[in-house]
C-alpha cells in the first residue's frame, strides 16, 4: 500500500505559470530598456542637431585693401587702420566677385551672403597683419547664418523658392563659390569666446558660462557654510524637542517645493522688498542657494550620521569638548560625503532655469558680465532663450549649448563619484 500517492502535477498549469513568469520578467526588461532607449534618443537627437554648431562656414573673398581707402595718410597706426570703413571694402569685394548683381534687391541679397559682423572680421585680419594694406588679399569672411545652414545641409534646394531662406539667385552664387573652392568650414571659435547676439552666426556662450560661474559661486558661498553648519547642529548638538522637529519637517518639505516658487520668493523679497538689482547673478545665486540648501543639509546629515559613535566617544574620552570632537574628528571624516552632496546640489543648481526666469535673468544680454551685480544670464536660460528664437541657425546653437551644459554636469558628477570612490570609508 502506498502511503504517499505520487503528487499529481498539473503540467498545463505549471506551463502557464512559467509562461507568466517569463512574461513578467520581459515586461521588466522592456521597462528598463525603454528608459535607456529614451535616453539614447534624447542624446542622439541633441548631438545630431548640435554638432554642426562647432563649425562655421567661411567664404574666401579676394578683398582689395587699397591704401587710399583704409589708411589714406599712410600712418600705419592701429587706430587709423581700425577707423576705416571695412563694410564698403567688403561690399566692393562681393560686387567684384559677382558683377551681375545690379538692382538694389540683388545687391542686398548679395551683401546678405556674409554675416552681419563680417566687416569686423575683415578689420581684425587687417589689424593683425597691417602689411596686407595695399594688396589684394584672400580673406576668410564669416558667412551669414542662412548660408551656413544651407552649406551644412539644413536648407534643402527642393523646397519652393518662396518657402526657402536661401533664394535661387543666392544658390547660384553659392554654387559658383563652391566650384571655386571658396567655401570653407572652420572650427567655430566665436561660439566659445563671444556673448549672446541676435545673429546666430555671432552668438556665443561665453557670457552665459561666466554668468553661470558667478551665480554658482554665490550659491556655493552661501549654501555650503549655512548648509553644513545646519547639518552639524541638527545632527550633533540640537536637543530633541519640538523646535528641532519643526526644523526637520520644514527642511524635508522645502526639498519638495517646486523651484518656481523659490523664484517668486526671490522676486517678492530680494527684488521688490530689498531692491536688489534685477537679472544680477547675486540675486540668482541667493535664490538658488535657498533652493539647494535642503539638498546639502540632507546629504551632510547622512554623511555625519555615517561616522560611527566610537570616534566621538574616543575623542570625548580623551578630554575633547563636544565642539572639538565634532570639528576635529567627526566633520573631517564626513567631509567626502558632504562634498559629494554639495557637488550634486551644485549640479542641480547649474541646470535650474525656472526660478531665474522670475528674477529677470532672461533679458537679452550681449555683454560678458563683469561682476556679480551686472545683468547676466546663465547657461540653461540661454538655452531657453535660443530655443525660443525663430532663426534656423539657433537650433544648432541651442543643441550645442545643451551639449556644453551636459558636459559641465558630467564633469561635476564624475568628480562626485570619484570623491565617493576615493575617500569614502566604510565603517
Amino acid at each position: 500500500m502506498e502511503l504517499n500517492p505520487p503528487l499529481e502535477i498539473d503540467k498545463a498549469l505549471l506551463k502557464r505559470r512559467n509562461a507568466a513568469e517569463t512574461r513578467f520578467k520581459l515586461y521588466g526588461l522592456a521597462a528598463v530598456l525603454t528608459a535607456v532607449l529614451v535616453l539614447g534618443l534624447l542624446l542622439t537627437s541633441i548631438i545630431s542637431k548640435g554638432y554642426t554648431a562647432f563649425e562655421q562656414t567661411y567664404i574666401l573673398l579676394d578683398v582689395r585693401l587699397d591704401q587710399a581707402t583704409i589708411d589714406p595718410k599712410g600712418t600705419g597706426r592701429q587706430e587709423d587702420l581700425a577707423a576705416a570703413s571695412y563694410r564698403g571694402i567688403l561690399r566692393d569685394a562681393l560686387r567684384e566677385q559677382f558683377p551681375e548683381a545690379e538692382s538694389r534687391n540683388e545687391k542686398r541679397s548679395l551683401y546678405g551672403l556674409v554675416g552681419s559682423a563680417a566687416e569686423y572680421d575683415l578689420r581684425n585680419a587687417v589689424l593683425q597683419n597691417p602689411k596686407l594694406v595695399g594688396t589684394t588679399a584672400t580673406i576668410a569672411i564669416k558667412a551669414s547664418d542662412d548660408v551656413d545652414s544651407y552649406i551644412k545641409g539644413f536648407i534643402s534646394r527642393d523646397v519652393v523658392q518662396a518657402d526657402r531662406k536661401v533664394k535661387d539667385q543666392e544658390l547660384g552664387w553659392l554654387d559658383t563659390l563652391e566650384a571655386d573652392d571658396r567655401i570653407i568650414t572652420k572650427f567655430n571659435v566665436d561660439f566659445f569666446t563671444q556673448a549672446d547676439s541676435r545673429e546666430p552666426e555671432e552668438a556665443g556662450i561665453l557670457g552665459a558660462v561666466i554668468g553661470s560661474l558667478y551665480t554658482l559661486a554665490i550659491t556655493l558661498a552661501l549654501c555650503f557654510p549655512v548648509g553644513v553648519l545646519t547639518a552639524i547642529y541638527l545632527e550633533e548638538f540640537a536637543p530633541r524637542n519640538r523646535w528641532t522637529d519643526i526644523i526637520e519637517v520644514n527642511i524635508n518639505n522645502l526639498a519638495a517645493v517646486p523651484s518656481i516658487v523659490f523664484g517668486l520668493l526671490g522676486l517678492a523679497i530680494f527684488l521688490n522688498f530689498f531692491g536688489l538689482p534685477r537679472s544680477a547673478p547675486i540675486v540668482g545665486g541667493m535664490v538658488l542657494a535657498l533652493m539647494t540648501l535642503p539638498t546639502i543639509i540632507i546629504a551632510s546629515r547622512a554623511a555625519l550620521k555615517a561616522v560611527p559613535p566610537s570616534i566621538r566617544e574616543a575623542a570625548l574620552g580623551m578630554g575633547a569638548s563636544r565642539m572639538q570632537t565634532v570639528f576635529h574628528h567627526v566633520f573631517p571624516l564626513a567631509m567626502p560625503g558632504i562634498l559629494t552632496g554639495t557637488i550634486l546640489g551644485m549640479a542641480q543648481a547649474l541646470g535650474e532655469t525656472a526660478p531665474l526666469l522670475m528674477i529677470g535673468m532672461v533679458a537679452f544680454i550681449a555683454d560678458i558680465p563683469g561682476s556679480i551685480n551686472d545683468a547676466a544670464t546663465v547657461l540653461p536660460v540661454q538655452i531657453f532663450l535660443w530655443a525660443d528664437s525663430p532663426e534656423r541657425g539657433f537650433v544648432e546653437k541651442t543643441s550645442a549649448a545643451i551639449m556644453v551644459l551636459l558636459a559641465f554636469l558630467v564633469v561635476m558628477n564624475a568628480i562626485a563619484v570619484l570623491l565617493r570612490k576615493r575617500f569614502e570609508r566604510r565603517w
Partner: protein
Amino acid sequence: MEQLALFFALIFLIILGYILGKGRAVALSGHAYHPLHSRLPYYGLYTAIWCGLPSLLLMAGWMAFEPAIAEAIVSSKLSASNQDLTSDQITLYVNDVINLASGGIISREVNSDLQAATDSYIFFRQTSYFAMAVVAISLSLAGLFSSLKTINPDLRARNKVEKIISIVMMVCSTIAILTTVGIVFSLIFETLRFFNKVPLSEFLFGLHWSPQTALREDQIGGSGSFGAVPLFAGTMLITFISMIVAVPVGLMSAIYMSEYAGKKFRAFAKPLLEILAGIPTVVYGFFAALTVAPFFRNSGELFGLSVSSESALAAGMVMGIMIIPFISSLSDDVMNSVPQSLRDASYAMGATKSETITKVILPAALPGIVGAVLLAMSRAIGETMIVVMAAGLAANLTANPLEAVTTVTVQIVTLLVGDQEFDSAKTLAAFALGLLLFIVTLAMNVVALKVVRKYREKYD
C-alpha cells in the same frame, strides 16, 4: 569693486586679529606663573571673531537695506517737489534715476531735473557707502584692540569661541524656517492684494482665463478674466499623462532591477537611469518641443488626426520620462524594505518569482509606492520648463490630450517674465497661482511622507 576691496580689507583685519591674538597668548604663557586656560588657537579665534563678526554683519545689513533706502529717499524728494505725480509715475521716474546712475538705458530724455536727481542719488549712495566703510573698519579695529586687551591667562577663550559658534549654528538652522516663512508671507501678501481686485470665487471656479487687461481706456484688450479652472484642468491633464508613462515604466524597471537583473546589468543600467534624473529640465523641454511634439503631429497627420504642435501629449510624455528615475528609485527603496521573511514564506509555498512580487511584495509595499507616486505627482505639478517650452499658452478647457492646454506654472512664467507694472491684477495673479501651487504640492508631500513613514514603522 569697492565693496570687494572693503571685504578683503576686513578679511585682512580678521587674519591679523588671529595672528595678534595668538601672539599675545604666546607672550602671556611665556612669563605667566600659571598656564593658559585654552589652547593657543582659541585666543586667535577669539580675537578674529571680535574683529570680523560685527563689521561683517554691518556690511551685510547695509548691502541688504541700502538700495531700498536710497530709492525711498529719491522718491520722497520727488513727491515733495511735484505733488501732482501719481505713485506709478514716481516709480517710473525713480527707476530712470537708478538706471541712469548705473549707466543703463532709460525711458525718457535726460533733462537737468533728472540729472540733478541722479547726481544726488549717486552722491547719497557714495556717502553712505563711505560712511559704512569707515564704521565697519573702526568697528573691526575697536573689536581687535578691546579683545586683545581682555586676553589674559584666565580668559576662557575656548568656551567663548564655542558659544559664538553654537549661536552661529543655531542661526543657520533657522534659515530653513525663515525661507518657508518668506515664501508663505511673500505669496500671501500679494495674493491678498490680488483677491482685493478679483473675487476668490471667480479665481477658483471661473471657467475663463485671459489675464491680458487693457492698459488704457480706449484700448481693445482682453477682459481680464481670472477663472483658473482651465489651468487646473490643463495641469491635471499633463500630470495624468506623465503618470501614465512614468508609473508603469518606473515601477517595472524598479522591480526588474531589484529582483531579476544580474550584477552586470545593474551596473550598466542604474547609472543610465541616474543620468536621466540628472538632465536639466530645460533640456527635456527642448527635446519635447523640437523632437517629440513634431513627431506626434506628423504621426497624427498620418492617421488623419489633427494634433496641435503644442499638444498636452508631448509635454506629458516627456515629463513622464523625466519622472521615471524618480519613481523607480523611490519604489526600489520601498520594495527593498519589505522584510525577507515575507519573500521566503512565499517561495516556500511554491510561488514563482513573479507571483511573489505581484501577490506578496507589491501589496506589502503598496503604501510606500502610493507615497512615491504622490511625490512624483507633486513634482510633475510643479515642473515648469518642460511645459513652458512644449505646452501652449492658450487656456483651453479640454480633456483631449491632442490639443494644446496650459498649466499653472506656464501662466506664472508668462505673467511675470518681461516688464510689468507690479500692481496690476495680472502680475498679482501669478502670486495667487504660486500660492496655490505651493499649498497643493506641500499637502501632497506631507501626505506622502506620512504614508511612507507609517508604512516603514509597520515593518521595522
